[in-house]
């Protein structure tokens, strides 16, 4: 079997004496969407931060294309093709939309194809790209979220990590975001989607893992009907 694009093996994250992630095994292949759901504090965000080198794992390994990236700096991991869209819409609010997008382009390992990607992103999120000269801080919450995703896409990632992309968004915007992500998947990008709302993840992802207390406690296939009691058990133990 070929190696998955992103493979997480026995990953643990600790903050002092507190264990946030414990022995997680997870893999995402090109063109695949894997969901990760769980209650607040389950360790989902810590897992993403460990993959991107923002926090150093306490144990375990993270492999990109079969090569370990543990210990790499965040910027090197980003340039290797792993993009994180963090929770809370981190636009550079005092920069213009165009400057935000340009930062994405500057993160590409290969400058070739930048124009094509720009055209593609313009098609995915026309509302955002049209407002190129405005300050990113003046965009609505939904537009900021689209901008952050657009910026990540312009860095031409092979792996896209999304932390609660639908949080606080209007339903129409959530639709736009997820239909864009569907196109991203079709391009062969591996997507790891962290969501608090399980039904959103289960409907979209090929597989969804439930995380509790830093461990993966349950796996759901796409379209799996959500049984409230079963989910409550998985979420809260």
């Amino acid at each position: 079997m070929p190696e998955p694009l992103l493979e997480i093996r026995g990953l643990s994250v600790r903050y002092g004496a507190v264990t946030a992630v414990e022995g997680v095994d997870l893999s995402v292949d090109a063109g695949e969407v894997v969901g990760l759901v769980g209650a607040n504090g389950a360790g989902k965000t810590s897992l993403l931060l460990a993959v991107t080198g923002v926090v150093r794992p306490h144990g375990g390994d993270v492999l990109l294309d079969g090569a370990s990236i543990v210990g790499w700096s965040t910027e090197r991991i980003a340039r290797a093709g792993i993009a994180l869209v963090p929770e809370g819409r981190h636009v550079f609010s005092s920069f213009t939309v165009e400057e935000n997008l340009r930062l994405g382009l500057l993160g590409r390992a290969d400058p070739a194809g930048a124009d094509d990607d720009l055209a593609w992103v313009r098609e995915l999120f026309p509302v955002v790209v049209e407002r190129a000269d405005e300050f990113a801080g003046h965009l609505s919450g939904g537009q900021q979220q689209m901008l952050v995703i657009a910026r990540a896409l312009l860095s031409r990632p092979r792996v896209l990590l999304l932390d609660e992309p639908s949080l606080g968004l209007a339903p129409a915007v959530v639709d736009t975001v997820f239909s864009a992500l569907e196109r991203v998947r079709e391009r062969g990008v591996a997507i790891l989607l962290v969501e608090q709302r399980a039904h959103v993840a289960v409907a979209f992802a090929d597989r969804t893992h439930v995380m509790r207390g830093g461990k993966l406690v349950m796996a759901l296939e796409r379209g799996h009907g959500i049984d409230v009691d079963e989910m409550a058990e998985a979420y809260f133990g």
Partner: protein
Amino acid sequence: MIYLQAFVDAVALGTLFALVAMGIGLVFGVIRLVNFAHGELLTAGAYALLFTKGMPIVVRIVVSLAVVVALSAVMEVIYRPLRTVSPATVLIATFAISFLLQNAALLAFGTQGENVEFLTELNKAFVVGGLRIRWITVVGLAVGGLTLAATAWVLRRTDVGLQMRAAAADVQMARLLGVPVRRVVVMAFLVAGLLAGVVTLVLAVQRPLITPTFGFQVMIPALVGVVVGGLDRLVPAALGGFAVGFATVMLSSLLPGAQRVFLNTVLFVLVITILLVKPDGLFVGRRRAVERV
């Protein structure tokens, strides 16, 4: 007329202070470090001019600029281990570097000072409309203005400038976008060094007596300007530096002769008042809560 005369001189000094402030603000923006030793960059440049006395002007300028930029790069390396320690430790460490360099200069060159004899003819004045204007005022304004404009252009229009601003605004997000933060930090120190080098050249004409506190005397009021203007935004920081330089000259001409000894008192009362009323800085708009990843 006396006020107009003071106004011209005030704008000239303000421009120099703005350059120093911008250098301090640039480094602070990228790594949250107030480099107290920034003034010693100027001092080093001034001594470089002193040691090249008698050589061709171009050689003196190039050597002086090179020394300042190189020292700034060395400071970046020295401060590297401090990235992970508390801000108080960093502050004291940069203070220590400043004092070390000042005292090394004191040991080597003494307190007397020596005349640098650099472009002295620029201190001659011409008269226009009853105003006596020294050539160095005009040259300083032109060079300072151009340098400020060039720095602003680099920050606004170039890729590395964009990355520097991104690292200053949100270093974590910048890293996640693949911004090479280490290289950006080195760039910030190099640009800050270049700004300090330019200030040194102008200042050495105006204040030709070179002593170990040559730069420190300028750094302190410029730093006050940075704080008054707003520490973590470049334009406000530069404006703050300008304001302090401007106010220094204007106050000294407004205050009656005998009261001029109170210049610093008046200046600092103004500064304290401003900080009480607008603690974020005079030229900074309402601040958004800072979020981090």
